[in-house]
């Protein structure tokens, strides 16, 4: 069934995309570790890694602690947040059969913010970030399930997007009200809940978020094929043996887990979940097995890249990372919409 000799063979394209994105991600992570106020070179980076992996007994350098305690957790946090956003964006678009679905628009991100604040409220100061993330996950999943009920009432994409926007802005307002009224150093600022930020990345927070996000990657890739069938329509998927309601609930809950981890790590970072799957679908096709994996890697690369720019371009001032993803993502999204509109006519 594959046409031999075809230069745009999909499976070749997917492999190129996988290798390309992985290389890009590693490159961006290294760049992210080297960039910053304290100047560091590749030798310093190798030195730190060598010492940490007990491969070398060289004396400690000043740059070691900057790299280990600040920059490495930060690029890892950026990758994880981006992976969670790209992955859940791709999965939600499949589950809602709507390419405008994204973790913000289906209410996952703002609800996860509310859940995270509730988590901070019930844990003692310095308590486990895992509780905060799990509550964020539960709130996010609940909001997404509500959105699914609403999506059944409104069929049109535009209505769906408007409902998602209204729901999200409403929850964001409550979030803002709580943050402003509470005014405690334990609660991240309002900016964090609107535009995100990775400056608080520590190994403790990473340790809580990593399992959540990795489990979500595996759990979503496992339902890649049923998500493909869903593109045929809900009753068609049912006729092929897919329990559609269960599949969609599963995807929403697992996406909630990923987003819970992501919001706990980096706050609300927009447009990654929307734009990355949109671009990759054009490149590697609609099959979810590849789309999910590549969206996770692509999302990771995007957040690491944007975060590096965000903290260096106006140094010593740090720009919230979500502000830059929106500045980059919004025009890309609009450009895609216009292109899609043209090809439809």
């Amino acid at each position, binding site marked *: *069934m594959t*046409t031999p000799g075809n230069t745009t063979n999909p499976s070749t394209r997917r492999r190129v995309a996988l290798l390309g994105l992985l290389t890009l991600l590693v490159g961006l992570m290294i760049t992210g570790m080297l960039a910053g106020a304290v100047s560091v070179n590749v030798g310093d980076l190798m030195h730190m890694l060598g010492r940490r992996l007990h491969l070398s007994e060289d004396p400690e350098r000043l740059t070691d602690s900057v790299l280990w305690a600040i920059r490495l957790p930060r690029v890892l946090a950026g990758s994880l947040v981006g992976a969670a956003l790209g992955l859940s964006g791709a999965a939600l678009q499949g589950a809602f059969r709507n390419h405008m679905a994204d973790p913000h628009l289906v209410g996952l991100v703002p609800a996860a913010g509310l859940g995270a604040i509730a988590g901070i409220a019930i844990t003692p100061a310095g308590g486990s970030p895992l509780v905060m993330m799990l509550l964020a996950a539960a709130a996010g999943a609940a909001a997404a399930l509500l959105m699914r009920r609403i999506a059944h009432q409104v069929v049109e994409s535009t209505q769906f997007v408007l409902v998602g926007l209204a729901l999200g802005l409403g929850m964001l307002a409550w979030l803002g009200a709580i943050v402003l009224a509470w005014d405690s150093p334990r609660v991240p600022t309002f900016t964090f809940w609107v535009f995100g930020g990775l400056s608080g990345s520590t190994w403790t927070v990473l340790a809580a978020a990593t399992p959540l996000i990795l489990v979500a990657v595996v759990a979503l890739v496992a339902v890649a*094929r049923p998500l*493909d*069938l869903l*593109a*045929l*329509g809900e*009753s*068609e998927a*049912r*006729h*092929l*043996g*897919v*329990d559609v309601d269960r599949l969609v609930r599963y995807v929403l809950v697992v996406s909630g887990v990923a987003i819970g981890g992501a919001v706990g790590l980096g706050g609300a970072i927009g447009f990654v979940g929307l734009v990355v799957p949109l671009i990759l*679908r054009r490149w590697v*096709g*609609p*099959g979810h097995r590849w789309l999910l994996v590549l969206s996770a890697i692509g999302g990771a690369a995007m957040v690491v890249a944007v975060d590096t720019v965000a903290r260096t371009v106006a140094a010593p001032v740090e720009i919230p990372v979500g502000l830059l993803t929106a500045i980059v993502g919004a025009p890309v999204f609009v450009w895609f919409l216009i292109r899609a509109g043209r090809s439809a006519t």
Partner: protein
Amino acid sequence: MNGAIKVESVGYEVAGKALLDQVTVAAAVGEVLGIVGPNGAGKTTLLRIVAGDLSPSSGRATIDDRDTATASLHDLSRLRAYLGPQGVVDNPFTVSDVVAMGRHPYRRTQIDPLEHDQIVETAMESTDVLHLSRRTVASLSTGERQRVGLARVLAQETLVVLLDEPTSALDIGHQEAVMRLLRSTARRDTAVLAVLHDLNLAAAYADRLILLDKGRVRVSGSPEAVLRGDILTDVYQQRMRVIPHPDRDCPLVLTLDHD
């Protein structure tokens, strides 16, 4: 394996209104059973009850003696395939991807991948969509989508094939080709149950017909027995006359002016 499909005194009510009332139908492996009748007669509802999409309010529908209202989705996916009137809805996959999705019910079986590919290719060949295999569904015409949908249904290789107006968007050549294909599919080892609007296609290719009217079976049997001028005129509220087909061994339905 006679009586692949059995519908026993099925009733279906929505908000107190009976969409189907005491409907009894049976179809055996090897035959094409056509469902005809005017709009709102309950044809699609009957098809969906057989498919297990809707649970009847009374009576029961079985495929291979399994009650379709209670069988698992997985079991049903190996018992029956279903083609809606639009064939395949707009989606970003290619034609060969979509047809290969018909093999999903067999993903955990010990079937050689090459055999899957062979089945998919045969299905595309017989529905005349093989030349479209690398095109995306979004780029196809309505009639092409209907044939792609049919290919997917055939690739599912089920005992029972349920079709809702499978020829509604097709040109005359493809209409006849699809009906011939359905008949040869039935002859191999399948029971085909199809809602058909074109009474002459039904007359030429269905082994038996049931005529539904307002949720009840008005008459069933051979095309000659069902397609009668007086009955059709009454059911469709349109003067009709039935004559022997000059060339084929079946009736020919003609519409007439009102008085």
